[in-house]
Structures are given as C-alpha cells and as structure tokens.
C-alpha cells in the first residue's frame, strides 16, 4: 500500500546525470510540467577532495568511483563479483559527470555502421549526421575545449582553446611523432576560459573526484541551473523502485522512496529512464506485473542483456626527467591511430589512447610500492624519488562488442537501504577484447619507449574501470531485437522512454558521455516534434 500520492506531472525523468539533465532542459520549452527524481543529493563544491590536504586519500573513500566502496546512503550496492571489471558510478545531481574525467570525444560516423562495415554486432538505427546537431547543442551547453582540425574526425564545433599540453603531452606527442602515429589534443568538457558563469580550469589535478573550481562540465552546473530556471522541478533523495502500468500497457507513474524512507507514488503521463546502463535495467527488471512478468518493456527479453563496458588497458612509463606530476586537468592528448578495423592485428574494431598526465605524491607511492618498485626500508626514499613527478602514460579504451551473455539482472539477496533489490553483473571479457587489450599494451609500450620512458607498468583490463555502462536497453527498429525504437520510445510501453547509455547498440572506442548527452537531446527533440501523436 502506497502511503503518499503526489500531484500528477506530464513527464517524470528518473536520474539527473548526463542524459536526464539534457532531456529536462530540452523539454522545458514545451511548458509541460516536468519532474526529475534523483536518488542522490546536490554535491557541494566546497566539499570536494581538492579543497582539503587529504585529497588523494578521499578519492578512495567517500569520493570513490565504486558505489560499493563509497557506500553512501544514496548509493545502491552492486553485485559485480562475477565480472573482471567492477562497476563505477556516482549517485547524485549530475550523476556520473560528477566523477568523470571529462574526456569528451564524439563517436565517428563509422561507429554507427559496425555491421555494414565490419560484419559484427548491429548498425544503429540512426547515423552520425542525425546526431550531429545534437552533439553541437550538447557541446554548447556543456562547454567543450579542443583544437579544430583533428584528422581522425569530420570537422566539428570549436568552442574553447584546448587544455595545455604540459610536459607530459609534449613528451608523448614526441613519442607518437617518432613512430609516425596520430595524436591530437583531446576534446575536453573543461572550461579553459570563463564559460556560462563557470570559472576556467586551474589545473587542480583532481577531476575524477569532483571539480571545486567548477571548470569541469558536470550537469549539476551546466544543464541544471538552466533547466530549473525554465521551470523543471528536481527532487533529490527520491529513489525509484518501480514503474507501474495499466491494463493498456501504458505507464501510470513511478513508485519511489523519499529521504525518510516513505514510499510514494508519482503519477505521470510520460516516464523517462536516465539511470545509466545498470540503473535503468534494474528499474525495469524490478517493475514486474501480470502484463510484464519478466520486467517492464521486456517482451524482447533484451532488457539487461548486451551489457558493454569499455575494457581499459593502462600503460604508464617512468622517465628520467621531471614531468608535471598530477598537475593539470586529467585530460591531455589522445591518439586514434588504431581506431578502425585492421584484421591483421587479430581482432575487429579498435580503440583510442588517452594520455593521462601523471600521479600525485600518494598515487606515486601506491603505484611504486604495490608494484614492487619502491621498497620499504632504507632504500625507500631513493626509489620513490626516481618515480615521483616522473611518470606519465595512457589508457587504451577498447570497443566492447555486444553479447547477450553479458548481463544486468536482479540479485537474489542484495537490497539497498530502502529494501529495493540490487543489480547483479555477469560479464566475461571476450577473446576479441583480450586481443585488443594486448595489442594496445604492446603499441603503447613502443610509444612510451620512443618518448624516453625506461620502465613500463601495465594493467589490462583495469579491474576497477567499469566507468561506461551501455547497451542494456538497446535502440532499434525491430521489436524482437531491441527494447526501444529509433527515437528512444519503448516498443512495449508507448509512454516510456529510455535516454541513457542503455540505448547504445555498440560502444565505439571512445568515452560515451558526449554521445549520451547528444542522444538525450535527440530523443527529447523527437518527442517535441511528435507531441500530438506521441503515443501512437
């Protein structure tokens, strides 16, 4: 029995991250009554780790990327023991953009045509040209820095000057040049000059535990101030447990728990899911009924299937000269030399290298001691000084292909603080991904050596690196092969929309956040164009 019923709204959006914020802002111009329910809270910039002396340590505790380690009341546990890659996320206004690195690449035109070009996975039901105006709109709202003319991409909008190369970028740029391989300043969702009321980057080093300066584009400080001014209501500490439907297969609203743990019903004409590739299938699979015994909008049986991460390799070098340490935004340069398929490499599709500057004093110590390079005892100081401020390197972000055996399901035992059943992850690294990871480690080692590194540290896959959660409610034109249609509407429930990374048909070899934002704007615009016939 639900104790409280709220006033009906036109649209309820579940989740306030990259997609929920963008869609809320876009739909606000319709003057519909729009409500966003967010299970977390607003994060205060003056509480971010970079404001305190123990900023590195706090990255591993209350600002950890792992919800299981962070374990805030606003988090839900995730059983990811049956996966070599652990889930990373953040639950709060801004979602994952609070802790992301702000690496902001677009997909390539070829990423939407994987089946046609390479005979694997599926083509998307939309193409790059369809998304391009929404990429531009999302770029303007988020504020993107970069350098025009990257030969790995079609021409794209240039808004702010690129992030600095620094010593690390120059060293590795020289390494890539030595081998004749592509590199370019990364597109970054980082303000390199004052932008839309935000201050410019001052190289705090701590993008991945929240930007106290406000230079990094997290949606709590980009979209949300505009959306709220335009009349959208954002309700925090509101954790949705399920979506209800009537006998006509139409969603009637959502059930959620408020801050006091009181269960409430929020009636709505339209429900939009923006909870990421794990949270969205969790809500759908928890929403069982006589009409949908296997989970809401799941007549295809594909909700929670085809989970894709980006398997990451980490390749770091130690140099005999001082570099930048951790200083700078995390984002620096990238290389897409190995982005497209070349079957002679032993795998299909490809990856991006992202150069990630260096480490702080604690991070260097962890890396050195726990890799056996810095001993305890008398020799500790001498060995530490050989590594501190002398490390830089890169990660290889590998395209993960969809496989129905990689899944999000509901765990038999685990529940969150409101008693809502939690997600379980079952994921196996494919042979294709394994070969791609190995190749990325070998080539990056060559780059680092060409740049002057004398010692190389590698990890593949990065065990805690499940940052990108995609594919679990894929879009498509065939109701038997997809969960939502080509503009995000459920095939089964005509007033239910998915707008987050769950939509992805394939993952590409780049970070997804820029595409998630663009897709959310595209879905919202598709809705606006069809308001009179939205449920037909």
């Amino acid at each position, binding site marked *: 029995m639900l104790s409280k019923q709220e006033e009906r709204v036109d649209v309820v959006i579940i989740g306030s991250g990259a997609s929920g914020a963008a869609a809320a802002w876009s739909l606000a111009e319709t003057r519909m009554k729009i409500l966003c329910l967010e299970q977390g809270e607003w994060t205060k910039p003056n509480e971010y780790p970079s404001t305190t*002396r123990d900023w590195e340590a706090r990255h591993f505790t209350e600002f950890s990327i792992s919800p299981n380690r962070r374990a805030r009341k606003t988090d839900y546990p995730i059983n990811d023991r049956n996966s070599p890659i652990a889930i990373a996320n953040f639950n709060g206004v801004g979602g994952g953009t609070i802790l992301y690195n702000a690496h902001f690449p677009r997909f390539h035109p070829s990423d939407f045509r994987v089946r046609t070009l390479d005979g694997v996975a599926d083509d998307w039901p939309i193409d790059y040209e369809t998304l391009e105006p929404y990429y531009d709109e999302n770029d303007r709202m988020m504020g993107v820095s970069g350098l025009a003319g990257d030969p790995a991409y079609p021409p794209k909008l240039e808004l702010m000057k690129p992030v600095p190369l620094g010593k690390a970028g120059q060293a590795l740029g020289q390494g890539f040049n030595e081998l004749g391989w592509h590199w370019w300043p990364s597109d970054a969702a980082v303000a390199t000059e004052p932008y839309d009321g935000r201050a410019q980057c001052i190289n705090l080093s701590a993008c991945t535990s929240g930007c106290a300066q406000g230079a990094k584009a997290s949606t709590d400080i980009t979209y949300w101030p505009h959306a709220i001014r335009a009349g959208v209501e954002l309700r925090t500490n509101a954790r949705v447990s399920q979506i209800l439907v009537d006998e006509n297969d139409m969603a009637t609203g959502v059930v959620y728990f408020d801050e006091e743990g009181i269960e409430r019903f929020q009636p709505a004409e339209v429900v939009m899911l923006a909870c990421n590739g794990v949270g969205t299938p969790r809500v759908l699979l928890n929403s069982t009924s006589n009409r949908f015994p296997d989970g809401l909008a799941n007549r295809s049986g594909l909700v929670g299937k085809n989970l894709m991460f980006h398997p990451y390799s980490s390749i770091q070098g130690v140099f005999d000269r001082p570099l930048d340490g951790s200083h700078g935004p995390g984002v620096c340069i990238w290389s897409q030399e190995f982005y497209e398929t070349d079957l002679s490499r032993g795998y299909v599709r490809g990856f991006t290298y992202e150069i990630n500057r260096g480490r702080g004093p604690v991070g*260097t110590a962890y890396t050195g001691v726990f890799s056996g390079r810095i001993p305890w005892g*008398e020799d500790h100081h001498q060995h530490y000084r050989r590594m501190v401020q002398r490390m830089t390197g890169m990660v290889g972000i590998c395209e993960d292909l969809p496989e129905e055996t990689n899944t999000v399901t509901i765990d038999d035992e685990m529940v969150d603080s409101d008693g809502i059943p939690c997600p379980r992850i079952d994921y196996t690294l494919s042979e294709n991904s394994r070969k791609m990871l190995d190749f990325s480690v070998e080539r990056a080692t060559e780059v680092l050596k060409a740049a002057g590194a004398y010692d190389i540290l590698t990890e593949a896959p990065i065990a805690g690196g499940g940052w990108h959660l995609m594919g679990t409610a894929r879009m498509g034109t065939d109701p038997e092969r997809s969960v939502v249609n080509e503009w995000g509407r459920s095939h089964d429930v005509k007033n239910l929309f998915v707008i987050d990374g769950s939509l992805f048909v394939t993952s590409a070899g780049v970070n997804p956040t820029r595409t998630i934002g663009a897709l959310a704007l595209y879905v919202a615009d598709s809705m606006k164009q069809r308001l009179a016939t939205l449920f037909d």
Partner: protein
Amino acid sequence: MNEEIIATEKFDSQLRRTLVALLDTMIPANDEFNAPSAGTDSIVNDVEQSMSDNTPVMVSEMLNRLNEQSKVRFEDLDAHARWQAFTELQRTDGHALRALGGILLQCYYRNDQVLESLGMEARAPFPLGNEVEQGDWSLLDPVKARGSFYREV
C-alpha cells in the same frame, strides 16, 4: 622519534611503541633528503586516525604476532634484527601489512615535512591551483601534414 609514547583509543602504550617502531622500519628517516621517519609523532597520529572499521583490530593482531615471533618485543630489537623480523612479517602477515602500508603511504605523503623535503607545496590543490605549461604546439605539424584519415561511411 617519540620519547614518551602514551596509550590512545586504538592502541595501548606498549602496542603503540611497537607500531611506531614498525613504521620507522618501513620508512626510516633520511638525512640526505631531509625526510622524516614514519615513526614521527604527527605521522603516527595521522595513521591511527585514518584507520577505520576493523583495521585497528587487524593491525593490533599483527603487531602482537610480530612481538611473539621476535621473542623480545620488536621495539627492543636493534635495526638489523628489526629488519629481519619485518621481512618475516611480510611473508606471514601480508594482508594486514598491506592495509597498514596503504594507510601509511597516504599519511606520510601528505605530511608537511615530507612534502617540503620533496620540494612540493604543503597545501590543498584548491583554490590556488597549479601551473602547467601550454607546450609547443608545433609538435602537431607532422600530424597535420598527414591529413584526414577518418573512415568514410
């Protein structure tokens, strides 16, 4: 190093002596670099305060085993014998030692004196930020010369 070691909430005075001696063995002072010992009061206090959940219990048990295996108390051994006992501890108590080591590293490398010995400013990153050079953009010339190579569809 401490002259007088007193009991704290997490360790009695005897066990705290052992902890101080162990930390000093893991990261001893170094005159050449002007680096303090990890057994310095301020660092030991930080290590203690940073232990949460069951870590104090796990570390206490490890320190007791260290004393038992050393026959005499660890802190009463000479430097050579301490190192031998520590080496044995790494073999027998790796998990607990790793947990203590992680806490020690985060505390040691945020200590004012340590950061100063490294030539680093002892402050939070915000609000002053850091300088990073723009760099030489002409390094991109060979990349530009290669021309566009994205895959057409």
